[in-house]
């Protein structure tokens, strides 16, 4: 077997090159960049204003908006696997000696980095607009949590996109599965113990990422209650397990073939 002839550096090159491609492609599609920046700001302002009756401020919606950025960007970034397949780029990756898992990691890392880039920009915006009272260490932990969420969600996107041969199919999944996933993550509604919404949200792994961000990110003059949220330990445990599970599933599904390979 010659499977070990590929050195660590060349595996690194495979991951690096696919990740770089993802990011370069993102910045070359100007409308994607603009949409990715404008949409969350718009949602944040609209939700904060529209749901003012609930006595929830901009600070409350901030972690949820971060989760939305991560969810949508990460997942949209992986839709590109469908384009890669349709436009043929994928076939040349599939017949190259690059190991399949390295391809998966490169693709997911690229999508996750695009999501992180936007989430970080938004974090800076929140910092400037609301004034962050969290300690530096808490901010670092929050960023790490975002990173874990980004990997989990990009992997989830990869998992869904791998077997699809059209982006239309992806949009259907988006509205019946991903959007509710965000709605039920505690991003929009505060956790009310005992309410059915809260109970359902316990089964949603994204809830724990959002709760983690709520623990870490506190803003001036708007102390958002963390009562009723899962503890930080639970948040980390679930988020890391979610990311690991999605990554493994993405790797496993990438070993399967689809008729789309044969275009």
């Amino acid at each position, binding site marked *: *077997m*010659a*499977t070990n*002839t*590929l*050195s660590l550096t*060349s595996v690194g*090159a*495979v991951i*690096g*090159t*696919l990740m770089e*491609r993802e990011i*370069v*492609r993102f910045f*070359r*599609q100007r409308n994607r960049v603009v949409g990715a920046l404008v949409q969350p700001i718009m949602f944040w302002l609209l939700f904060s204003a529209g749901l003012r009756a609930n006595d929830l401020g901009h600070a409350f919606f901030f972690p949820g908006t971060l989760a939305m950025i991560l969810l949508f960007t990460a997942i949209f970034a992986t839709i590109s696997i469908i384009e890669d397949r349709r*436009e*043929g*780029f994928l*076939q*040349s*990756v*599939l*017949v*190259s*000696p*690059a*190991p399949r898992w390295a391809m998966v990691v490169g693709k997911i890392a690229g999508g996750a980095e695009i999501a992180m880039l936007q989430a970080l920009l938004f974090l800076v915006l929140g910092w400037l607009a609301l004034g962050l009272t969290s300690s530096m260490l808490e901010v670092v932990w929050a960023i790490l949590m975002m990173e874990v969420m980004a990997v989990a969600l990009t992997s989830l996107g990869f998992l869904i996109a791998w077997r699809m041969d059209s982006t239309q199919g992806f949009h259907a999944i988006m509205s019946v599965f991903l959007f509710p996933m965000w709605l039920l993550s505690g991003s929009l509604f505060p956790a009310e113990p005992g309410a059915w919404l809260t109970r359902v949200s316990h089964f949603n792994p994204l809830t724990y990422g959002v709760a983690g961000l709520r623990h870490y990110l506190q803003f001036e003059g708007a102390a958002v209650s963390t009562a009723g949220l899962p503890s930080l330990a639970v948040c980390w445990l679930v988020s890391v397990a979610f990311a690991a599970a999605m990554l493994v599933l993405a790797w496993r599904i990438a070993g399967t*073939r689809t008729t789309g*390979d*044969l*275009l």
Partner: protein
Amino acid sequence: MPATPALTISEVSYHYGERVAVDRLSLEVDAGEIFVFLGPNGSGKTTLFRILSTLIPLQAGEVTVLGRSLRAQLRAVRHELGVVFQAPSLDKKLSVAENLQHQGRLYGLSAAEIRERSNLMLGALGLTDREGERVEKLSGGQRRRVELAKGMLHRPRLLLMDEPSTGLDPGARAELWKYLRQIREQDGVTVVMTTHLLEEAERADRIAIMHEGRLAALDAPTALQASVGGDSITIRSTKPAELVEAIRAKFSWEAVLLDGAIRLEQPCGHLWISKLVEAFPSEIQSVTLGKPTLEDVFIDCTGAPYVEQ
């Protein structure tokens, strides 16, 4: 001649569900050959290309590439193969140089090697001034050349091409063949391609004619043409069905009816034409005499008309 064949295919079969696409195919390609799989759509050649390019797994049989088993040494085989797909595989949002760079990294080349090979390939294919251009701005012919540069970047010893002339004008096709001969002479690269174009196949060292997943004939183009007995005579008639019967009865030739025309092969065809026209003066509209073409070979081997699309 090196002892190891560039490619051996033994007893390879492939099914899509119930449908058999490739049926117990066996053959060998020598190192340094330019080898063509010729067949109409649905002959199984595209499925075979997908198997050889490692895009789909081998279901039954064995394939070796330069002595390495496709089944057991997949990664080593992938290093030896340069693959040029019929469908484009370039990232249109990236420049020519960036596309080659990604390809080089996927094959484990160093940055210096990628630079050196890219310059060499772009020079050889007349693309040096296009290096920084985004692929979406290139013409169809230029894109095909970048595909070729991409496939050859890592110095494969076996170049696999699926319908390489698709979208090329005759001039570009001639250039392509010049380049293929050149890499064969200079680097000893073996070229294996599929095509449905008869005039493309004629340029190969050897042709494997595929029909319904099987090997219908395998030889050099001239030998294949010589294998067709004598000259080929095509007769057009207002009543082809009756005429073919009449010809069979009168001359006891194996005349066949294909696409409304009567075809037969006969040594010294020119001598027979006058006899034919004298025998059936009113039934015959036109008679064509020709040296056998690859189309005649195909018809001769398979009994089916050649539908080029």
